[in-house]
Every structure is written in structure tokens, then in C-alpha cells.
């Protein structure tokens, strides 16, 4: 890489430094500082001075050190070989760094994000003379068993182009020329398998599309109560220990997206290791292949440099958009956006900017909005469809949802899965609160559920939400006067809700059967519970005491069906329903006669 000296260091203060004698450096240009070649980015220009944020520990940088400009913005390298890889926040491959510098990450080391020597089998899908444009797909590479990588013309290519040169099907490296395209007026572009894209700029699309398809996660509380659309945005806020990470892991493992980008932004090292260790062994229930075959991981643990933490979110979403442009449904998990916001705050403080709320910079909401707006269900430049769904964890200090990051995030997401500490304390997982959470996608995905012949979903959902609301009010009364003061009919509502919580909302991520619940099973389970409510209410009206209903053997069956009924034997639930009807009838008949 040809680099020029753009200036010299003037002052060093942690990960932010001031440079002087700046000539032709650009905003957001990628630079290397001193002979240690520490990676940095120009974040502010003022006269002949610049402010640079460095992505590695600044120890040893002295005033007067050279600053080398690379001429381009901090960019992600995009091409086959991304899937299954593990990166740090600035897209350095961690496995590769380990072979270079051992178990600890030493300073100033670099490695390309994808393997430039690896040979891929390329199958062209256009031929000489075809009309193409930026974003058009010109061929395919089988990247992993599961993912077909579609090689595209860089989206920045201008106007209507013609293929003037195209290679035959065969084995190529990523840098090899595959095609030459031209607009006939002197503009030509050489297409290879690899392209670079500045991480802070959204990749272009043709149009936004509606969000009618839910992202199925296999978690009942999400799919049934608070669904997320493909291309939607959701925030998961929760104090520490409420299970944000566990919920994110479950979704990453089981959701029906084609590609997962998992960003560990300021996460614990050991937890990241858990992901790295577990994902390759997890089998995707739909394809029977390893989950790593559809996953890109970014691991920027909390002790890695703060600026790289800030960049990690953008690196992740840029890779997600790249696969979206190929026509895939991508889900991106960011754990946690609060760590990212805190990185912004830390850097802003170092730049001595005027703080707004709680020390966060005034541009925090703008940055949050910019990030979430990169989600969506899009018509891609090549004419296909793809989506990026964003699932952002938020870690509010002290579990207090009124803090700036949670509040601003709420403005820009359309679904909210609030985690509740008291549920987590009782080991009710996922600890998603049914009172605080919401989803604006419910009406949009109704048609999809109907199209899956699950018409009961929408009404069942509405009914159980109503019961849960009633329960909240009844619980307040119980707190004051005790449960005995309530009539059986109302106590039964408490009973049904408590059953619904243990039998339906709770899900054990470690249980072979329970950890993933098919939509069919979800709908049937909820139907049985509502049936129990209907029949039970009738029985109580007839004078059957609540204790007798509660003691029915079938109630235990309902409580344990999440463990006992596997996804491919959903008809077992119908048997439970039959048993329920029979038991209720027996019970009721005793009282009919009186």
C-alpha cells in the first residue's frame, strides 16, 4: 500500500491524538501513526491540525511521530471467505492474528480480512455483451456448503454498463480479474471477487419494501407475543444478569435468517469464547449443517481498544448489507449497543467536546438513528430482495430504562423486548417482560401467519395479552388483600396466567426439545392453554371449586408439554387437548347432577 506522510503528532492523550502540519488529509481517512503503524482515523480537521482516533493502545507514541495517510476511509474488505470467520472491531481476522502474534494481540499487526491466496470455483452467470449495472450479479462461488456467494459489480459503478470481457468457469483467487465492464464512453471497471466499502456509509439499494414476513426465532415469547419482521429493528434492554446475551445467543442459533452477523461489542472474553466454541458444533435444524456456515463473528472484547469498539458496529452492518445485496435475509445481533455508545462518550470526552445528557455527546441520537436505519427489507440494486434485521442489546446502567441510550434507541426501533430483573431472579428465561415489551410488527405479520394456515395466531395472541393485562390488575389487589379475597373466577385467571408463564413463556435454552419451538407447536400450545381457560371458566360458573380444576392430572401434562412434545409430534398436543376436554367433562358432570 502506497502511503504518504500527511502530518506529525502534536499531542497524545489516550486513544485520541492531535496532529499538526496536515496538508491533504481527508475526513475519516484511515491513517497509520508512528513507526509502530498504529491504525487510526481522522475524525476532525481544523486548519492544519487534525484529531485522530487510534484503534490500538497509544503507549509509546510521541510528539513529532509521522502520520501516514492511506488515502481511503476505514473500509471493510468484502468477498468470499467472510462467512465462518472471526474478526475484531476493525475487521482484522483474529485466527490469523493469533498465528502472527500468539495468544495476546500485539501492537501494529495487520492481516487482510479474507484469504487472498485461497482459490474459489467461480461460475459466471453473465456473458460478454450483457447489460449490467452497479450491484448486478455476474457469477457465483460456493462459499460454504450453505452459502452461495454472489459476485457483484461494485455498487459505486455508474450507469448502464456492458460486459466486454468475461472469464470462463474455473478456479480463481479473489484478486483475479473476472470481468471487465464498460459504459462505451471510456469508463471501464475491472471486476474481481473482492470489493471495499467504507464502513460508515450505507450500501445503496433501489427501494425499501414492506416488512410482512416475521423472523422466526423459535422463542415462543418472541414469535407469538412480540414478533420481529425480517428487516425490522428491535432493542433488548436489560440490566446485567437479566439474560440479554443468552437471548441473543438463542436467536443467533435458531432464527431463520440466511446469514447471521454477531457483534460482540465490548463483551466478556469468556463469553465470546463460549460462542466461538459452541457455534461450530451447533447444527442448524433446517439444513443439518454447522451454524458457523452461516455466521460471521465480530469479537471486540471490553479490554480491546475503545475506538475499535466504536467501529465494530459499522464493520458488522457493512458486511450484513453486503450479503443483503446478494439477496439474503441477514440478521445482525449487536451485543451491546450501550458499550458502543459508551465508546462514543469516552472518545467524545477525550476530544473535549461539550457533553449533553449524562456525558454522552449531543450527536448520540443521530448516530443511533443512522445505525438502525441501515436495517430494512430492500429491493437490491440487482433487482432481488434482501433484508437486514437488527437486534440490538442495550445495557442500561442500573437497569434503569430512562437513561439516554435506552430512550433514544426506543425512538428508532419498532419492537422492544424489555428484560425484567425480577423474572431473571426467579430464573424465568427468557426474562422478556410481557408488560413492558411491545412490537409494532404484529399487524404487519398477521397475513403471513394466515398464509401458514395458522389463522388462530392473531386472535389467540390478543386473548392471552388481555388475560395478562387483567392479571396485572388482579395481582395488585392480591398484594393488598391476599388471594383468598378474590372469587374463584378471578383466581382462575391468575392460575391460567401462571400456567401460561411456566408452560409457555419460559423456555429452557439447554433442553434438547424445548430450546426451539416450531410455529405449529407454539400455536397449538397456546390454544390448549386458552381452551383450559374457557373450559375452566365454564366449570367454575357451574360451581366446580378451583382446587379441583387445579389438581387435574392434565394440568401437569400442559405444564410439561414444552419438554415432552417434540416439534415433529405436535399432534400430541391435540391429545392433551382431548384429555383436557374429557377431564373437564367428568368434573363438570359431578356438579351438573347436584
Amino acid at each position, binding site marked *: 500500500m502506497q502511503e504518504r506522510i500527511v502530518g*506529525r503528532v502534536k499531542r497524545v492523550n489516550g486513544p485520541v491524538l492531535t496532529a499538526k502540519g496536515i496538508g491533504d488529509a481527508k475526513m475519516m481517512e484511515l491513517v497509520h501513526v508512528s513507526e509502530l503503524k498504529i491504525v487510526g482515523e481522522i475524525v476532525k480537521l481544523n486548519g492544519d491540525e487534525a484529531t485522530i482516533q487510534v484503534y490500538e493502545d497509544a503507549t509509546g507514541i510521541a*510528539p513529532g511521530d509521522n502520520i501516514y495517510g492511506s488515502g481511503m476511509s476505514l473500509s471493510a474488505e468484502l468477498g468470499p471467505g467472510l462467512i465462518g470467520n472471526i474478526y475484531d472491531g476493525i475487521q482484522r481476522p*483474529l485466527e490469523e492474528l*493469533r498465528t502472527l502474534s500468539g495468544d495476546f494481540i500485539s501492537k501494529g499487526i495487520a492481516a487482510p480480512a479474507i484469504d487472498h491466496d485461497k482459490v474459489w470455483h467461480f461460475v459466471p452467470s453473465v456473458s460478454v455483451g450483457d447489460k449490467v449495472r452497479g450491484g448486478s450479479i455476474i457469477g457465483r462461488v460456493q462459499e460454504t456448503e450453505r452459502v452461495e456467494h454472489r459476485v457483484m459489480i461494485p455498487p459505486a459503478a455508474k450507469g448502464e454498463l456492458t460486459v466486454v470481457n468475461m472469464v470462463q468457469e474455473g478456479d480463481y483467487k479473489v484478486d483475479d480479474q473476472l470481468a471487465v465492464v464498460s459504459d462505451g464512453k471510456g469508463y471501464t471497471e475491472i471486476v474481481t471477487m473482492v470489493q471495499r466499502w467504507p464502513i460508515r456509509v450505507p450500501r445503496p439499494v433501489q427501494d425499501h419494501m414492506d416488512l410482512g414476513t416475521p423472523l422466526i426465532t423459535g422463542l415462543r415469547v418472541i414469535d407469538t407475543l412480540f414478533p420481529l419482521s425480517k428487516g425490522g429493528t428491535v432493542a433488548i434492554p436489560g440490566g446485567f444478569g437479566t439474560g440479554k446475551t443468552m437471548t441473543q445467543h438463542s436467536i443467533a442459533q435458531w432464527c431463520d435468517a440466511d446469514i447471521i452477523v454477531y457483534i460482540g461489542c465490548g463483551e466478556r472474553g*469468556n463469553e465470546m469464547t463460549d460462542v466461538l466454541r459452541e457455534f461450530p458444533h451447533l447444527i442448524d435444524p433446517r439444513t443439518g449443517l454447522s451454524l458457523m456456515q452461516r455466521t460471521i463473528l465480530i469479537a471486540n472484547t*471490553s479490554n480491546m481498544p475503545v475506538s475499535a469498539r466504536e467501529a465494530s458496529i459499522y464493520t458488522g452492518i457493512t458486511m450484513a448489507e453486503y450479503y443483503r445485496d446478494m439477496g439474503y435475509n441477514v440478521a445482525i445481533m449487536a451485543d451491546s449497543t450501550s458499550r458502543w455508545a459508551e465508546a462514543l462518550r469516552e472518545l467524545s*470526552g477525550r476530544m473535549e467536546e461539550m457533553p449533553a445528557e449524562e456525558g454522552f455527546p449531543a450527536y448520540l441520537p443521530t448516530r443511533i438513528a443512522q445505525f438502525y436505519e441501515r436495517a430494512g427489507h430492500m429491493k437490491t440494486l440487482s433487482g432481488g430482495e434482501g433484508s437486514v434485521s437488527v437486534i440490538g442489546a442495550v445495557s442500561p*446502567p442500573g437497569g434503569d430504562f430512562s437513561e439516554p441510550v435506552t430512550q433514544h434507541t426506543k425512538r428508532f426501533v419498532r419492537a422492544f423486548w424489555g428484560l425484567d430483573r425480577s423474572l431473571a431472579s426467579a*430464573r424465568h428465561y427468557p426474562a422478556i417482560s410481557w408488560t413492558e415489551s411491545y412490537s409494532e410488527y404484529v399487524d404487519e405479520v398477521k397475513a403471513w401467519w394466515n398464509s401458514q394456515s395458522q389463522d388462530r395466531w392473531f386472535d389467540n395472541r390478543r386473548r392471552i395479552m388481555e388475560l395478562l393485562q387483567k392479571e396485572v390488575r388482579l395481582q395488585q389487589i392480591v398484594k393488598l388483600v391476599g388471594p383468598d379475597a378474590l372469587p374463584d373466577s378471578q383466581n382462575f385467571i391468575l392460575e391460567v396466567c401462571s400456567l401460561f408463564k411456566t408452560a409457555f413463556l419460559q423456555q429452557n435454552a439447554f433442553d434438547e426439545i424445548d430450546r426451539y419451538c416450531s410455529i405449529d407447536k407454539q400455536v397449538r400450545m397456546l390454544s390448549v392453554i386458552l381452551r383450559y381457560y374457557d373450559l375452566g371458566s365454564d366449570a367454575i360458573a357451574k360451581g366446580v371449586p378451583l382446587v379441583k380444576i387445579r389438581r387435574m392430572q392434565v394440568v401437569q401434562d400442559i405444564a410439561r408439554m414444552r419438554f415432552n412434545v417434540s416439534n415433529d409430534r405436535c399432534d400430541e398436543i391435540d391429545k392433551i387437548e382431548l384429555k383436557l376436554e374429557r377431564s373437564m367433562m367428568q368434573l363438570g358432570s359431578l356438579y351438573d347432577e347436584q
Partner: protein
Amino acid sequence: MMNSDEKLLKESDKALLRGRQYTGASRIDGPLVYMRNTHPVGYGELVEIIAPDGSIRSGQVLDTSDDAVCVQCFEGTDGLSLPGTRMHFLGEPLTLGVTEKMLGRVMNGLGKSRDGAALPSSSDERDVNGVAMNPTAREYPRDFIQTGISVIDGMMTLIQGQKLPIFSGNGMDHNQLAAQIVRQAKVRGGKSDFAIVFAAMGVKYDVAKYFIDSFEETGVLDNVAMFLSLADDPSLERTITPKTALTLAEHLAFDKGKQVLVIMTDMTNYCESLREISTQRGEIPSRKGYPGYMYSSLAEIYERSGKLIGRSGSITQLPILTMPNDDISHPIPDLTGYITEGQIVFNRDMHGRGIYPPINALSSLSRLMKDGIGEGMTRDDHPHLSNQLFASYSKVQEVRNLASVIGEEELTELDHKYMEFGEFFERKFVSQGFDEDRSIEETLDKGWEALSILPAEELQRLTEEEIEAHYRG
């Protein structure tokens, strides 16, 4: 004044400048010393500050620019004068010469001898700031450490390579608990080479003395390296103490293959010192005046625990912090909780009722527990049992709240059972003697004894087989 040519020195010339000595500070403000007209000094460099009386103190470059260098002096600035202060920039970051022979010794926060005798020499100088472990090089911790304390082993199991802080408050028994863990901790089914690194930050002399005595009684003193920066030592030294201690811990664990247990007390004092220095530098504060980078600073300490693939050693951290005003949402416990793998939370109410250890099981958690317990590691019924204990004990809280409103007499029969269970759980399961070392089997059996108070149909987290095998109600 330095001329501009001098500023454009090449790297090779820089080497010659290292070691130059300058006289005359331009400003002294608390622990910070500012000096003008130096050669280009690197960020984070180690500095020797020579006081007018000839004593040598150490410092570190906090801010460096063309005009001035800002140095923080670890040993305080008492007795320094503007014209009489000399500085010697060493051209390298603060290092610690590490050697196994430091076990059994008492050092100050910078790793210098505190007991008077000379320290063993070492040729292996390590940057105390450490470098981040590559996440792909980490090994996932899953080896159970038996502490002999029921509530910890049973419900918030400690795992080798974990960082599990104790969130306590002033006046509670956290030191006793830490000492008891040090005494009783063992890995099952094998002898391992334990070592203890103890870092004290801003604690009173008696607290340090308590630990020394307790180590001595147990006969582990030769296996303990102590880094003491006591309450009357300069506040700044505390910001470096945990880093020095962990530098030695890394050497012992990853070069010498030892299972290192690092006890750091009190992290609250570390954070107070960070705030002090940040305020002195006029930085923009974040929550409650603590600097915006406190999360990163804490992470740089806590994340230096774990295991590495292909190396036998491990670093397990047991930091102790006292929650100001018992407030768990205070920035210090809050940020700590986001970095560590769980927490052990003390409860003043339980302490008041004479329960030792006064651990509130419901707000405590071990994130690494799930993969370190169960069949082949502890006992097959452990995961479900602990789950059930949490659920039932959480129900106890509900019943108690209800009882406080409507009175105990009004409770249902089942609720009475829960009250009874809660009492047994706290008095017999959680509570234990300071010298009582319970094996994991005893712990689990005690757990079953508690659950047997409840009717079997209330135990929904347990399988029928487990209830069959262990339930005695």
C-alpha cells in the same frame, strides 16, 4: 526553547534522547507534575522523578504534546518544588520484573519491596498494562472450584478462569468470606498447583493484616504474593496496583502453569482514585463524576482472567468491592457487573439477622456455572436443583411480602410451607460456620432437605426421576 528541527528527529535519534534528565517543573497540581521543553516524550512512558532531597519516585506520562508533558507521580508530590524537581524519562512503559520467587513476598503497589528485604531479581520485564488476549486463543472455563460454601457451590458456582466479584458493603463479612474461599478452594479429582496473588488498594492496615494472618494460619503464605497499597499510601498508586498484581498473575498462570486466584480489595478505592486523577486533570466527568473511561479501565483489569488453549494455568479473579451506600446501581458495581461473569451480592438485612455468609442468592449469579456443573462435574441433579432453589426462594419473597401486608395467620397452608422453606434455606443452607467446609454432595443434599419441606408438585423445575431419587418430603 526547542527549535523545530529538534522536533523532527528521526527514530534513531530518539533512542539517544531516552534517558535524558531535565530539571525544573512548570506546574505541580496534586499528583500531577507538568514539565515544559522536553524532547518528544512517548505517551505512557515511565518517569523517574527526583525530588529536591534526592529521593526517587516513579511516575507515568499521562499527556504529551509539543509544549508540555503531564506526568502523574505514583508516590505523591509532597516535597517537590518547581525549580528543584528533576525528571528522567525512561523511554519505556511501566514494567514489572516477574519471577516465581515473588511468592511469599510483600510488595507495594508498584511491585517494589515493602518488607525491606531486596526483591529477587528478574530478567523478565513485563509491561504492567498487559495486552489483550486474543478471544480465539481463550479456552472456555469449565472446571468447577469447590469453595466449600453451600450457597456459592450450589447456586453460583465458581469456575477456574472466572471473574466473580463480591459486592459487599461497609461493615459486612466480605474479608472473612474471601479468606474462607482461599482456605477451602479446591479442584475436584486432582491436585493442582495453586498460587494466590493478593492486591490491596486503599484498605486499612488491619484488613491487610487480617489476610496475612489468615494466610499464615492456613500455611499458604509461601504461595501468596501480596501487593499492598494501603489507605495511607498515595492514592495514585492504587490505580496501578491491580495491574502490577495481574502482571505477576499472568506470569504464574501462563508461564508457570499455576492455578492463580487473584483477590483484589477494594475495587471501590481503585475507582475513587481514577475519579480523583480525572478531576485533577479537568476532564469532563460522566456519571457521578467518574471518568468516561472507567468502564474501559475496569475491563482492562477484569478481562485479564481466564484460560488459554494449550496452557495448563488459569487466572481466577475474586475482586471485592464495597457498594457505596449499599447501592447496586452505583456506577462502580454497575460497570463491574457488566464486565464480570456474575456477582456475589451481600445483603445487609441478612447480615443483621446473623446469617453468615450474608449472600442474597436472588441477586447473585455465576454466568459460567451452566457448563461447569452436572453429571461428571458435580452431580447430575445439580443444574435442576439450583434452578428449583432459585425459583422457590424467589416465591418465598413474594409470600413474605404478602405476609407483611395481610399478616402471617392469613396465609394459606402452602404459603406457610414456603415460609418454612425460606427459613430453613437461610438458616441451614446459606448459613454456615466460618470453618465449615462442605463438600458439594453435602451441599446438594442440604438443598434437597430444604426442598423436601415443599410439596412435590411445587417442584416444577425438577424431573420426576430426580424427585423420585432425592425427594424426602
